[in-house]
């Protein structure tokens, strides 16, 4: 995983509430597809018209948002399906940080697993941020994870909260499996004890005549 420390780039507003992971990436693109080449398919139902041409009305097809690194979204962003491809598609497009009032729980987790930073901010704060960008959308926004600060145009500084463990993992680009395997003895001890207490959890295979 690539470490996430600071990010500076164009921030695109896409404020519709309840944007689901089906719309972020269509399921067909995840069958046999390479996770690293999903960028062109991010939001494809909105980005392209039925004839395959770009829809100029869609925000990510317009300058300067075609180069967006940050997405400012509405409530419950990434709700629905658990598909991690939604994060891969955003990453492929170049978006490495999403700012929203709330997120789908599974999507929120999936972001941290891939070095993408989801930031929760109150809706009025988000509206202020969007308003401050409206005059000059090409002005970059900076996100500094080390200080948990967003530097918006007009020198506004917005602080955000992020779980300390997740923050540390993002800053260092740490792989979660590697860290968990350090607890292997504790896992073995748990299972040994649990096997005695709840044998039915572990004995399923011996009963399998299904």
């Amino acid at each position, binding site marked *: 995983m690539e470490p996430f420390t600071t990010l500076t780039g164009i921030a695109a507003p896409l*404020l*519709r*509430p*309840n944007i*689901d992971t*089906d*719309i972020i990436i*269509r*399921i*067909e693109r*995840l*069958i*046999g597809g390479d996770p690293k080449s999903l960028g062109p398919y991010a939001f494809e*139902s909105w980005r392209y018209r*039925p004839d395959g041409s770009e829809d100029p009305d869609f925000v990510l097809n317009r300058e300067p948002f075609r180069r967006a690194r940050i997405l400012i979204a*509405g*409530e*419950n962003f990434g*709700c*629905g*399906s*658990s598909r*991690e*491809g939604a*994060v891969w598609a955003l990453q492929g497009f170049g978006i490495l940080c999403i700012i929203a009032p*709330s*997120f*789908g*729980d*599974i999507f929120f*987790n*999936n972001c941290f*697993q891939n070095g993408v930073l989801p930031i929760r901010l109150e809706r009025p704060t988000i509206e202020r941020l969007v308003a401050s960008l409206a005059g000059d959308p090409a002005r970059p926004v900076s996100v500094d994870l080390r200080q948990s600060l967003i530097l918006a145009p007009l020198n506004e500084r917005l602080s955000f909260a992020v*779980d*300390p*463990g*997740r923050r*540390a993992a993002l800053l260092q680009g740490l792989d*979660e*499996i590697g860290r*968990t*395997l350090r*607890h292997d003895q*504790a*896992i073995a001890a*748990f*299972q040994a004890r*649990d096997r005695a*207490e*709840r*044998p*039915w*959890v*572990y*004995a*399923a*295979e011996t*009963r*399998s005549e*299904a």
Partner: protein
Amino acid sequence: MTGRTLFDKIWDSHVVAMLEDGAALLHIDRHLLHDLSGSRGLRDLAAKGYALRNPELTFATVDHAVSSAPGRDAVTNPAGAPLIETLRRETAARGIRFFDLGEDGNGIVHVIGPELGLSLPGMTIVCGDSHTCTQGALGAIAFGIGASELLHVLATQTLVQRKPKRMRIRFEGKPAAGITPKDMILALIGRLGTAAGGGYAVEYAGSAIRALDMEGRMTICNLSIELGAKIGMIAPDETTFHYLAGRPFAPRGAGWEPALAAWRRLPGDDDAAFDAEAAIDVAAIAPQVSWGTSPQDVVAIDGRIPDPAAEPDAARRAAMAAALDYMGLRPGAPLAGTPIDRVFIGSCTNSRIGDLRAAAAIARRGRVAPRVTAWVVPGSERVKREAEAEGLDRVFRAAGFEWREPGCSMCLAANGERVAPGQRCVSTSNRNFVGRQGPGARTHLASPATAAASALAGRIADPRRIAG
């Protein structure tokens, strides 16, 4: 010390270690794999050089990418064939119990977990699919995970989790005749919205939940993720234990009593506190149908399509207008009577035997309207065999429905089975998202009874008018 909730008890008993930052390393009792996310997970495990920690706690089925066409096999949908092949090969090589196509035990992952007794009260259950919450109906912590967490479970049989807050939702009262669990949960989501459960583990309680059979409880828990909650659960009771007794993978013989004793200790203590509470009176609920592109966009079957102009919030107003435009509907018009092209009865929400019986009871009363293509896709091989033994397949066929092979089918359209652009489908599944059933597809979520009634009428129809 104050009492603990059902959720707290299961959570506490699965903590392997507390990590530096307050997150818990949680033991996972059941890891269910399917062709779409499971085959990728097993492939990635090999590529990254990790060992599979507990094959005996891992089970696999084929459901997402397989064709549901009568007489299908693994290659009927060519795009899905490599996924199924990978799953077959990897599960055989690693000693994972695999329920292959056509075998007893195969079916939609959230249907087979409970029906085989793989998933049991008090367990932690995960799967690379957000509707894993269905299985919380057994009194378990069951939730969907993404590809990275899936790999984490394969390699460590644990997950790093932050404890969610706890919400209790009470369904109280007695539903009117013809009201199904699907109507109850859609009405709730319509009331609270799809973000209400974000950050919570939801426990459903109340007299109307106690009165439900296990299948109905699974339908309720299935839509937890559509309420925003990745975990939905119901305390186990005699209904639960009766359902599980004799299931192939449930404990039996001398093993049953100790398990039962442990399960009886699971329900929350009387003085347990929740972080949030909500309640809904089921007596006031009518059959629900969705009009928009979010599961919260529902109205009573005899209601009217809402008008965005009446919505004060600008973002919400724009979303409603976009949804109506996509759905090809007019604000203020009645929803019932809207002509339809397709009906899909199936999915992990509503494909169990009780769902098929309810749909068949309506199907007996008429024929599918000429313009409509109506499918019945049983949730599992077991459901299919049971339905056929009862003659439900003949009822459906005689009425002009297609009787198909088990799988996810048009719920997700990952197997190429799609609603054509612009076509309108009444569906018993759980998501009406833009393009969910295929690009440009217009989905109306409803109960099996409403879907069957609509198939006969050729229009969105009130099942209470057809019954009796």
